[in-house]
């Protein structure tokens, strides 16, 4: 009996420990996770902050001094470049290890390895899109250059030395929650981050929907509604700029320009209204007589933030700005001679090609009037708690056939990928973007800037520049395929060589402008050039709203200061409302309104067209326009089983302002003939009624900041680790393009001059640890529209009251 008792007790205890040591579904191992000596409690950082430290590490050539300022931003001083990037890897991993791990895992299609079968399809998607293939090619380019090779290897070494120093209690909390451990960092992981950027910024496609549009409406209507140059525009390179080069011959359009559709699948639409801003004013427009440069890239906002601030100094460089955790160098920033920033170009560098296979073995495909062999790439995906998945991906000379058959493709997921088509994507090509940043970080003048950016392939960016020589410039820049006009607007026939990319636009012939007479350069993802540019980059760009506002403000501005730039970055003025509101009000019949509708009309008439957080007019206008747009297009563009792309706001504006009797205003679902005025009136009723329905009579609850959803989540969507909803102004299409969880991910202003001064902030903090006081210490500054003055140290020993602690890394 006593044996039995003892036995039961021991078995129960062992079982209890086993249960507490294992993860069940999404529930972390309770004992391991809650244990105060091993679990999450260990991640709670002391309020007093870290004191100065000395660490001895293998792999260093000399001592490195890292000075941390009041936001725990590292200022790294190394005696050589190797040690500089080693230290960058080390300190970045110290603050952001889990983010680095999860982002590279996601890009590499290795999530299922840690979370199980539920991530299998997303992994398969990344593999089949050729993310690993592209990263392997990218690595070749980086390893071929001695500077970038040393940089990436040193960075990797630094990350790994940090990882080796960890015991399980030190792992970032997310590792403890998901119950896995950090693995060795590899050089290719640095490239995966660039591939993720390409996926975000140059991975969408309208080709599918446009091909459907063509089939449903015919070329005449499509050319009318989807023109290659918008109604309103304020191009990045000022209209009328002369092109100082002899262009290459433009390729001839192929015979089968319009390819046949294979499947009716809903493609991922490119989301309108996202993007970024940058601008630089010449000394003639600034109060100090030196240029000022500003940049705010709009991306998904997350905890930890996408950016990591850092100052990097060695005998060859002293640069300050933001880096991507997991990649060496500063990506956006300044040194004491130049400053630079980026926005997305939105070039068409992703095309789909129809593939005709010889037979079901799919070993050969038809191209250039002959059967050609395919290449097959085997992708092995490890899955937690299940056997490995092996996937064979067929590659034609264009690239991977992402999904061969409808059954291979998961239902209702990855809608942007057409079935049976091969993908030609710039992100698959060998390149060396790091060389661009390596050189920009060390740039001294305009020529250095031009030489640096020639190394950048993808995702193409509008590189803006200002220098102490009083030069300003902007270059929509990247590797642009040489194409015939509209090549890639629709899906192409992959068997015709005339549809292939025909080489590249020479980098020196990319659109560029230096010191234009208007005294400033700017970009907000709108058309790179006016229609006189000889090459085809894309038929669509972001609409002109933000660009126009920026250009209007800068044109008027004199004696500008850092603060004028900061205020402009927070500007909520709507050019769309300026364009359309007077006409919409003109068509609205006030005699037919209910009391509440009349009240709303009164409010919108008084509205100043700013999307400020407390603005009620903004909420009414936003709903009104949204309803109007949908009323105009939804009747024609709702065809069951066929996904279509709706015309742009710009095109809708054009009809409203110039063609009120257009047939597109008629609702073809009713026998009556509707006009523009009918649409405007109905949209107004619907807008006001929906606001009343959800928020009661017009009042404080109608304020834009409350109507709009704004929030920042943790990367894994963990409740309590993000901000929750907060009240803020802004909108896609205004300079302060903040809505949902997308918006200014880094705001920077740099005043050039004998002492270059930078200002900047991102929504979050340097530390990725939710138990750190530096996890979100900069959020309020960002949300209040303020900037931090960036600390720039000239040497490791420079005295500054802002330096709070010092970390010395010595060689072992």
């Amino acid at each position, binding site marked *: 009996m*006593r*044996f039995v*008792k*003892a*036995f039961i*007790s*021991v078995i*129960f*205890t062992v079982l*209890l*420990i086993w249960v*507490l*040591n294992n993860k069940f579904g999404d529930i972390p191992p*309770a*004992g*391991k996770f*809650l*244990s*105060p*000596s*091993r*679990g*999450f*409690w*260990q*991640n*709670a*950082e*002391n*309020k*007093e902050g870290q004191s100065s430290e000395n660490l001895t590490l293998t792999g260093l050539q000399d001592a490195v001094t890292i000075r941390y300022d009041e936001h725990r931003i590292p200022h790294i001083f190394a005696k050589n470049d190797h040690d500089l990037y080693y230290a960058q890897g080390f300190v970045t991993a110290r603050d952001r290890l889990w983010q680095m791990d999860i982002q590279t895992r996601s890009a590499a299609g290795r999530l299922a390895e840690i979370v199980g079968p539920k991530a299998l399809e997303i992994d398969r998607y990344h593999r089949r899109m050729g993310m690993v293939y592209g990263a392997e090619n990218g690595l070749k380019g980086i390893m071929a250059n001695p500077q970038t090779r040393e940089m990436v290897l040193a960075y990797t070494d630094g990350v790994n030395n940090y990882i080796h120093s960890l015991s*399980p*209690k030190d792992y970032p*909390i997310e590792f403890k929650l998901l119950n896995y451990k950090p693995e060795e960092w590899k050089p290719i992981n640095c490239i995966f981050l660039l591939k993720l950027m390409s996926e975000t910024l140059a991975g969408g496609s309208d080709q599918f929907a446009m091909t459907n549009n063509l089939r449903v409406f015919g070329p005449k209507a499509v050319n009318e509604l989807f023109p290659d140059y918008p109604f309103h525009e304020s191009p990045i390179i000022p209209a009328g700029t002369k092109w100082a080069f002899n262009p290459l011959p433009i390729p001839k359009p192929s015979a089968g320009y319009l390819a046949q559709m294979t499947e009716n699948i809903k493609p991922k639409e490119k989301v309108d209204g996202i993007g970024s801003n940058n601008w630089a004013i010449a000394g003639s427009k600034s109060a100090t007589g030196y240029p000022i440069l500003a940049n705010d890239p709009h991306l998904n906002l997350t905890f930890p933030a996408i950016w990591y601030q850092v100052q990097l100094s060695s005998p060859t460089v002293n640069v300050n700005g933001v880096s991507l955790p997991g990649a060496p160098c500063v990506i956006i920033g300044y040194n004491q001679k130049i400053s630079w920033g980026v926005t997305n170009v939105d070039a068409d560098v992703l095309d789909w090609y129809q593939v005709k296979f010889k037979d079901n073995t799919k070993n050969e495909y038809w191209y250039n009037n002959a059967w050609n062999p395919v290449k097959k790439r085997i992708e092995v995906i490890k899955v937690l708690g299940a056997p490995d998945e092996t996937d064979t991906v067929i590659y034609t000379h264009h690239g991977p056939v992402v999904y061969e058959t409808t059954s291979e493709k998961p239902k209702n997921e990855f809608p942007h990928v057409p079935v049976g088509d091969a993908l030609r994507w710039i992100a698959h090509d060998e390149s060396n973007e790091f060389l661009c940043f390596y050189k920009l970080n060390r740039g001294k003048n305009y020529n250095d800037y031009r030489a640096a950016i020639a190394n950048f392939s993808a995702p193409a960016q509008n590189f803006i520049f200002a220098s102490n020589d009083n030069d300003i410039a902007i270059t929509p820049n990247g590797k642009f395929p040489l194409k015939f006009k509209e090549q890639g607007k629709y899906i192409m026939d992959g068997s015709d060589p005339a549809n292939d990319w025909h080489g590249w636009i020479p980098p020196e012939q990319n659109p560029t402008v230096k010191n234009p007479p208007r005294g400033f350069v700017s970009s907000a993802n709108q058309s790179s050039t006016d229609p006189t540019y000889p090459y085809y980059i894309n038929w669509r760009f972001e609409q002109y709203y933000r660009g126009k506002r920026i250009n209007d403000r800068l044109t008027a501005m004199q004696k500008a200061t850092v603060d004028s730039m900061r205020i402009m970055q927070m500007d909520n003025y709507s050019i769309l409302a300026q364009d359309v509101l007077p006409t919409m009000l003109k068509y609205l019949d006030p005699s037919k309104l209910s009391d509440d509708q009349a009240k709303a009309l009164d409010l919108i008439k008084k509205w100043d067209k700013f999307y400020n957080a407390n603005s009620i007019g903004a909420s009414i206008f936003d709903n009104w326009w949204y309803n109007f747009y949908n009323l105009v297009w939804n009747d024609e563009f709702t065809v069951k089983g066929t996904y279509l792309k709706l015309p742009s706001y710009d095109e809708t504006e054009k009809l409203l302002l110039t063609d009120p009797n257009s047939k597109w205003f008629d609702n073809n679902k009713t026998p009556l003939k509707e006009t523009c005025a009918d649409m405007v009136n109905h949209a107004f009723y619907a807008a006001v009624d929906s606001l009343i329905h959800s928020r009661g009579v017009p009042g404080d609850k109608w304020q834009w900041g409350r109507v709009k959803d704004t929030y920042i989540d943790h990367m894994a969507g*963990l*409740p*309590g*680790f993000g901000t929750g909803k907060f009240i803020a102004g802004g909108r896609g299409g205004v300079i302060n393009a903040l809505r949902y969880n997308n918006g200014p991910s880094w705001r920077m202003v740099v005043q050039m001059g004998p002492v270059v001064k930078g200002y900047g902030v991102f929504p979050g903090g340097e530390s990725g640890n*939710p*138990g750190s*006081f530096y996890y979100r210490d900069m959020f309020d500054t960002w949300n209040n529209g303020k900037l931090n003055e960036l600390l720039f140290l000239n040497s490791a020993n420079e005295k500054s009251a802002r330096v709070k602690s010092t970390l010395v890394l010595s060689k072992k």
Partner: protein
Amino acid sequence: MLFFIILILTFASGYFLPWWVVAIAAFLPALFIGKTPAKSFFAGFSAVFIVWAAMALFKSIPNDNMLAKRVATLMHLPNWILLLVITALIGGLVGGMSALSGVLVRKAFAKSK
């Protein structure tokens, strides 16, 4: 006495060894000096409960309990104190069961002699 020995062993072993070493820290002393099953369970439970609560607070208080509050929200708990209690209870349960097992094992073998 048993209580103090488990308390000290739990405290001393936690930082270097896996979390479940508390089971050994409670089992072994009970195996040698545990008196009754009830007393042993109580000694193991209360010793580990106290050590875990104290160690958690030792990290959490200088942190203004910021992380504990975040994790409480993550776990859908109303406040971090409850998270602390659950932590201590889990530790206590493991400690108590291990001590109980210790004393029962000894008794099992003692009788057979």
